[in-house]
């Protein structure tokens, strides 16, 4: 495949894990920098201006959210892909709402991760089954809000998310729903946008419920 070479920065406080990821990434991805904390990551990313930042949700001096918040205003071209072993929905949704383009779990295979990095670099959203489950939960039908256009998922978007949660890949979803892969991508991106922009009460309440006291 003639894919462009993507420049990636790895942000994870676990040296071993970074080494493992680096060795597994395909030839189309080049790791140009690594950082183990928010304090190290922010200036590094600003300096290197990579295509994609692979970002751990948990870091010793703050979360992946802190990195996004500090970098994004100055480097709008940098895209973030969250990578975590965490199962806590509020952490994952939090990092997405801060601006990450997707979330994958750390047990993802090297090929799949490479694929996800390319997709992130292309500006597409990367949804793991788990994230799809969280989002469906968060947008669970219910109260009407001031801006229903923004705050509700369309039936089609819901359908796509359900298939992702069931373990379907984009291509398989496209085949099943008789859509083009491009259309599936755009549905997923629309969901991501709604997730990031929505301030519907239900979403905040949902997040608050899951947080401790």
């Amino acid at each position: 495949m003639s894919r462009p070479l993507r420049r990636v920065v790895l942000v994870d406080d676990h040296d071993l894990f970074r080494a493992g990821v680096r060795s597994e990434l395909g030839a189309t991805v080049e790791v140009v920098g690594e950082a183990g904390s928010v304090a190290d990551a922010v200036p590094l990313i600003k300096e290197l201006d990579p295509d994609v930042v692979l970002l751990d949700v948990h870091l010793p001096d703050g979360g992946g959210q802190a990195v996004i918040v500090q970098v994004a205003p100055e480097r709008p071209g940098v895209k973030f892909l969250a990578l975590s072993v965490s199962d806590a929905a509020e952490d994952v949704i939090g990092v997405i709402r801060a601006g990450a383009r997707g979330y994958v779990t750390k047990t993802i295979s090297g090929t799949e991760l490479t694929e996800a990095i390319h997709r992130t670099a292309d500006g597409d959203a990367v949804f793991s089954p788990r994230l799809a489950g969280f989002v469906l939960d968060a947008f669970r039908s219910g109260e009407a809000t001031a801006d229903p256009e923004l705050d509700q998922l369309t039936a089609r978007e819901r359908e796509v998310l359900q298939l992702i949660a069931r373990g379907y890949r984009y291509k398989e979803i496209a085949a099943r729903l008789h859509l083009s892969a491009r259309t599936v991508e755009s549905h997923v991106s629309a969901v991501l946008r709604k997730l990031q922009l929505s301030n519907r009460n239900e979403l905040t309440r949902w997040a608050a419920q899951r947080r401790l006291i």
Partner: protein
Amino acid sequence: MSVGPLRLPVTFPSVARSERDRVLAGVCAGVADSLGVDATLVRLTAALLSFASGAGIVAYLGGWSLLAAPGEPAPNRRRRLAGVVLLVWSAILALRGVGLAGSLVWPLALVAAGLVLAAGAAPFGIGERRARLGAGVLVLAGVVVFLGENTRGSATTLLAPGAVAVALLLVLGPWAFRLARERDAERAARIRTEEREELAARVHDSVLQTLALIQREPKASRRVATLARRQERELRAWLYPDREPAAEGTLADAVNAAAAEMEELHGVRVEVVRTGDAPLDERTSALVLAAREAMANASRHSGAAEVSVFLDAGAKRVALYVRDRGTGFDPDAVAADRRGVAESIRGRMERVGGTARIVSSPGEGTEVELELPEAGS
């Protein structure tokens, strides 16, 4: 999940007589130990108080009978009562020694004794009701003595404010006491939460990461990967418990348990994703059993390394999908034993008014769709 009881951050300091640094019975040293001050200071205070009509001496005797010797059980009830009486007596002596008139000291002592009794019936081994009654009598006696003493003198002006003060004390005392207790409990809960979060962060940074790493290692044996996966699951369940109510004994719980069991049995990853939840009843239990069989099938026959399970539990319908990317099969031309399994999944669902659909083709993997419509529809 069990979290060990956390000691309340606020408890009465436990005072014991000191064995190692004693002059008489070790009372002063014991008090000094628990207050964290120098024993000499306490001794000096006691000695000075002894000049106030001998208050220091009486207090010392009270402390001696009230406090346990180190390494011995708490003194019996009679000794504790005697100790309290002696301490109160010494306080009265001290107040008189300081120059307070008898007309004030005695009522105060009675009211104080009443309040002590009301606040802590337990240490004296007295029943709640009797303690309250005794406290009421003591306080009333205090008020009466106060009134009696002061109406005779010129201090009639003191009377009204005095009575009001006593009444206020009676009303606000128990309330303040309860407030303080509640605040302590709240603080304890907060500290526990903080400790837990800190622990979660630490375990997350080390153990969970390592376990994820082991599972990524292609050269690790399947057994090792399974062990790592199991540890990961147990830790995760402990670190990130579902914070929604009724996490125990729900459909989602049962599905998770079944997935865990299949992972153990067959060494295949079973990823469970869910949205919503439902109580576990006859119908949902049948769904779990059918799902369990579908997972077992996928683990045993598909050859795939991972099985995806998605539970979609809404108010109107519950659906569960088990999918693998394994070899798949042609549903129209399957071996008899496979068909048997498929029928048993279908049979389970149909008996509770649900449906099962098995979609598969060679090379494309298999998906089992289980659906349970709203009861009664």
